């Protein structure tokens, strides 16, 4: 942690960045995202195993948009997010300094995009065993069971959109659910509105999701919606050999095609 702090302090002291994005202690034993603008403030910066929130999402927020340059304490999920955001023209390399941190919490120093790409490849995706188990459990269900499972799983959804707000890849200024001419997705958080909302979101993230699981963590009613994206990421990797978050120059699977894509399902 000290090396992370030292880096952050130096970057601010040397005026290399205006802002460092990281974590500090929060309520009780929680940690929380924090924004450091002076070397002295960095005293409060922490990094530990609880710092799993994907703070790359702040890169699309005002504070980061207005900063001329910034640094971010970046675990592998954050690094993947940054690369994917760069691939989607949402962040420029010259603006951001990545303080790379491994899954184990080891600081690997500053990463430019090229180094970040290498780093990403060495850090496995954050898929947990329980997530895998749930995917398998659902896949083993019958059609009706699956449908009922998801209708029930989504029914507590209150459409607070914490999933969307916490997702670095959900940066649209106007979300699909907000377009009302036509009203593609019912706004009301009833079962149908919830089903279509989560289905649409899964499709929009297909091939772009970096599998940080933040949507699930932020959900106040604990819907396992991350596994939709996990499942589709696996599928996209398997079918199209395409994986998000590994390169800053990347065309996501659903913006490309090959002549040999499968069509055994087409009559």
């Amino acid at each position: 942690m000290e090396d992370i702090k030292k880096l952050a302090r130096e970057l601010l002291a040397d005026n290399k960045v205006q802002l460092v994005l990281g974590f500090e202690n929060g309520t009780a034993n929680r940690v929380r995202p924090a924004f450091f603008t002076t070397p002295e403030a960095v005293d409060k910066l922490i990094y530990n195993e609880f710092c799993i929130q994907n703070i790359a999402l702040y890169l699309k927020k005002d504070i980061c948009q207005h900063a001329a340059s910034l640094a971010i304490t970046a675990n592998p999920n954050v690094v993947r997010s940054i690369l994917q955001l760069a691939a989607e023209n949402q962040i420029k390399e010259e603006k951001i300094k990545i303080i790379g941190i491994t899954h184990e919490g080891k600081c690997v120093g500053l990463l430019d995009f090229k180094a970040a790409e290498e780093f990403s490849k060495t850090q496995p995706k954050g898929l947990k065993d329980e997530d895998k188990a749930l995917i398998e459990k659902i896949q083993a269900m019958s059609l009706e069971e699956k449908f009922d499972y998801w209708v029930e799983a989504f029914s507590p959804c209150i459409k607070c959109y914490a999933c969307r707000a916490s997702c670095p890849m959900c940066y649209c200024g106007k979300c699909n659910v907000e377009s009302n001419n036509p009203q593609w997705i019912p706004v009301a958080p009833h079962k149908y509105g919830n089903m279509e909302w989560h289905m649409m979101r899964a499709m929009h993230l297909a091939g772009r999701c970096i599998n940080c699981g933040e949507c699930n963590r932020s959900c106040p009613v604990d819907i396992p919606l991350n596994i939709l994206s996990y499942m589709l990421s696996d599928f996209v990797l398997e079918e199209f050999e395409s994986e998000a978050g590994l390169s800053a120059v990347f065309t996501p699977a659903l913006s490309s095609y090959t002549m040999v894509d499968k069509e055994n399902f087409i009559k």
Partner: protein
Amino acid sequence: MEIINKLIDKSALATLIERFTKSGKEVFAPVKSKGISEFARVETIQDIDFETIATKQSAKSLVFPKVEKILSYEKTFDDVIVNNVDYTQFPEVIAFGNRPCDAAGFIPLDAIFAGELVDEIFKARLEKLTVISISCKKADDYCFCTSVNGGPGNTTGSDILLTETTADEYFVEIVTEKGKAILDANTDLFKDTAAIDKTPFLAKLEQQFTQEVINEKLNGIFESDIWDKQAMRCVGCGACAFVCPACGCFDIQDETKGKNGVRHRCWDSCGFKIFTLHTSGHNPREKQAQRWRQRIYHKFSYQPEQQKLFGCVGCGRCSRACPSDMNIAEHLKEIAVL
């Protein structure tokens, strides 16, 4: 009404709940499922989670559900036939085992929906609701009811308040006529007692500030940079508003299937960018900081001014639900010492 003091033991309480359900009343109480405690329909006392300090969501959905059908309509060739919801048919509902802060939340909601203009649907739901709260033995780092004129044993908003005094017995305070009606129908289950000092049985929660001080401070800090600072890590979701027992903002949505349609009232949040977005593209609350400021001003300045009450009950749900740990009590304390 003067408060009537009684005692009830746990087996009698179980019987009471049984009687409610048998008489066709719907009983909603905290139920723990997959590690999360939420209000849910219960049949017996065994279903109820008495331990969790606060359910994730508040009890407000009993009177202000996340989706409320307010009317339906049918288009004909040259007309539209509107059918209002028959709110006289709403069921009798008992909220049981909620915390005093939950009960207190119904007061500001009532002020929003049944103040100058009366929302008949809300009113009907509230009238059919009887609130039987349980005092808090414990508090956590998010609780701050004592700073907003509430308390672990506060009776505001409750029809009946239960305070656990021994392992087997609750001290009962019958607060309202609705509460008395329950007592009258079930006198066999209650025992007489003199008033009891509840303090030893309640959670200890230090007062951090007063809402009056916040109200006063807000007069001069509308343009302060504190809003930017506090809202910096806000992700802009609506979790805080949706779990809040006192937040009453809503959106009206029409949904159609061919010539049939319904009008829904759904929860909405002032934290959303689209909440105040004008058709022109102009947004009076363009920045998240402005939206955060609105949340605080609404609860601690506008509501006191217009409705003579505060819009926060100190339950701390918003802070617990916040994905980026925005702690409202902490922020209010900062304002109080400005």
